[in-house]
């Protein structure tokens, strides 16, 4: 006898508000903010790596290699326990700073994703021909100006599809906050699943939701990619 016969898909309908208004909202907010933060810090790290100051380049390179050698699960554990102490150290407070589950996850994912986004942005910056920053400096633009107005906008544009693909990966990776019992979409689904003993239904549903969102998003990225390719 298979269990397909006694599946109860009503459990999904009953828990939809919790799954989406709390779980998916957490997941999407975390994804969006972490992608933005990861891009900002990733770009800074990429600029450090490409800078003419060797020390800066080494530090940035070390950070990227270091983070990219570690499993995300381990990094999540590290940060969840360590961030309050870092906060204490930064602010000089007498005791660790209390950081909520969301803020802690956000800091973790920004720190983690920055390493990955920086590699993409580095490739993007290197894809701009050397003549352009040279021309910019000949025009009297400072380094900051030439980056801000000439190099980075093009690098970002060229790399947009890759950046978005990395964001889809990030969207999927946020499910790992499950290990901390934080109610993201998967966490919410598993809580309902365990409470009502409806594991099969809830996990299938969660898989379907992730699948549809990621598929639609990557389809969009592919469309965008072909459009950019034509314009160029």
């Amino acid at each position, binding site marked *: 006898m298979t269990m397909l016969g006694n599946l109860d898909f009503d459990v999904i309908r009953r828990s939809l508000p919790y799954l989406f208004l709390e779980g998916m909202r957490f997941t999407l907010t975390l994804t969006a903010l972490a992608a933005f933060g990861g891009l900002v810090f990733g770009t800074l790290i990429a600029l450090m790596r490409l800078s003419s100051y060797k020390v800066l380049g080494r530090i940035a390179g070390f950070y990227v290699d270091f983070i990219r050698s570690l499993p995300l699960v381990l990094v999540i554990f590290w940060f*969840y326990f360590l*961030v309050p*102490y870092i906060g204490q150290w930064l602010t000089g407070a007498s*005791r*660790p700073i*209390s950081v909520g589950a969301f803020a802690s996850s956000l800091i973790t994912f920004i720190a983690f994703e920055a390493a990955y986004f920086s590699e993409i942005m580095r490739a993007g910056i290197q894809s701009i021909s050397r003549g352009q920053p040279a021309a910019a400096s000949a025009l009297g633009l400072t380094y900051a100006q030439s980056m801000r107005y000439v190099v980075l906008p093009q690098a970002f544009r060229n790399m947009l599809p890759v950046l978005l693909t990395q964001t889809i990966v990030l969207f999927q990776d946020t499910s790992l906050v499950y*290990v901390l*019992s934080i109610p993201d979409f998967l966490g919410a689904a598993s809580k309902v699943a*365990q409470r009502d003993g409806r594991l099969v239904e809830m996990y299938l549903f969660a898989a379907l939701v992730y699948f549809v969102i990621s598929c639609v998003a990557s389809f969009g990225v592919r469309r965008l990619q072909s459009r950019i390719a034509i314009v160029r």
Partner: protein
Amino acid sequence: MTSKYLIGFALAAALGVSQAQAEELTGTLKNIKETGAITLGFRDSSIPFSYLDDNQKPVGYAMDICYKIVDAIKKELKLDKLEVKLNPVTSATRIPLMANGTVDLECGSTTNNAERQKQVWFTNTHFLTASRYVFKKSSGLKSIDDLKGKTVVSTAGTTNIKQLTEANVARGLGANIIPAKDHAEAFLMVETDRAVAFVMDDILLASLVAGSKSPGDYVISKDAFSKPEPYGIMLRKDDAPFKKVVDAATAALYTSGEGEKIYDKWFMQKIPPKGLTLNVELGPELKHEFAKPSDSPDPDSYK
């Protein structure tokens, strides 16, 4: 900070009155006063101590006790408003999250033992329970030795998994021990035949069985891995002023008979989300402890 309070403070200072309030606050109390907020750590599925109800809000016996403690802190600090923040914890994360300041009180089913006291402190005991295992009636695993060579699950980060691990070595069971994230996940391993037994505090096992699809299928072992051990609300180590307030609050709660009422609400009445009744009467040891609240980690001191 209200102006009323400021005036009061100024008056107290001016008159040179040295009251508790005028003293320099430290540690957790200082932080609560400054931020106007306290963070409670709650559990997913420690029924009926701390778990999520139908609206996914944490409720339970330990949560109720914690809210009483919060009231006492509010009074002690003379605050008009005290915001209560909630942070989910698991057995594996609760101690580091207490140490690193993420939660101020952990409201759940944490065993108070001497080893943990090196890391955290506990307030007065709110329950006593022994470590046992649940199995399916059909598998007939009557004694601990029947677990030989079997797959056994327990929750990561608990005293139970440690006791199981130690028994596994001491008795040469050769059992394959799987750690689960929380109690619900561990029970599910037994429900779906992934593991033959789940080692946990018997009260939690009884609640999980009662809430399961077919309670009649499960049996809780007579054999125990430990004596009845005390549960305590966890707080940060080396914070004596905070512990003093929390201890006073719980002692007042238990000795006044109010503790017994809260106990009755969660162990003798219908509880959410499914309206089941656990029917676990207040035992003589806990009754005695309520009369004389104690935070001792020693199981023998509760006899």
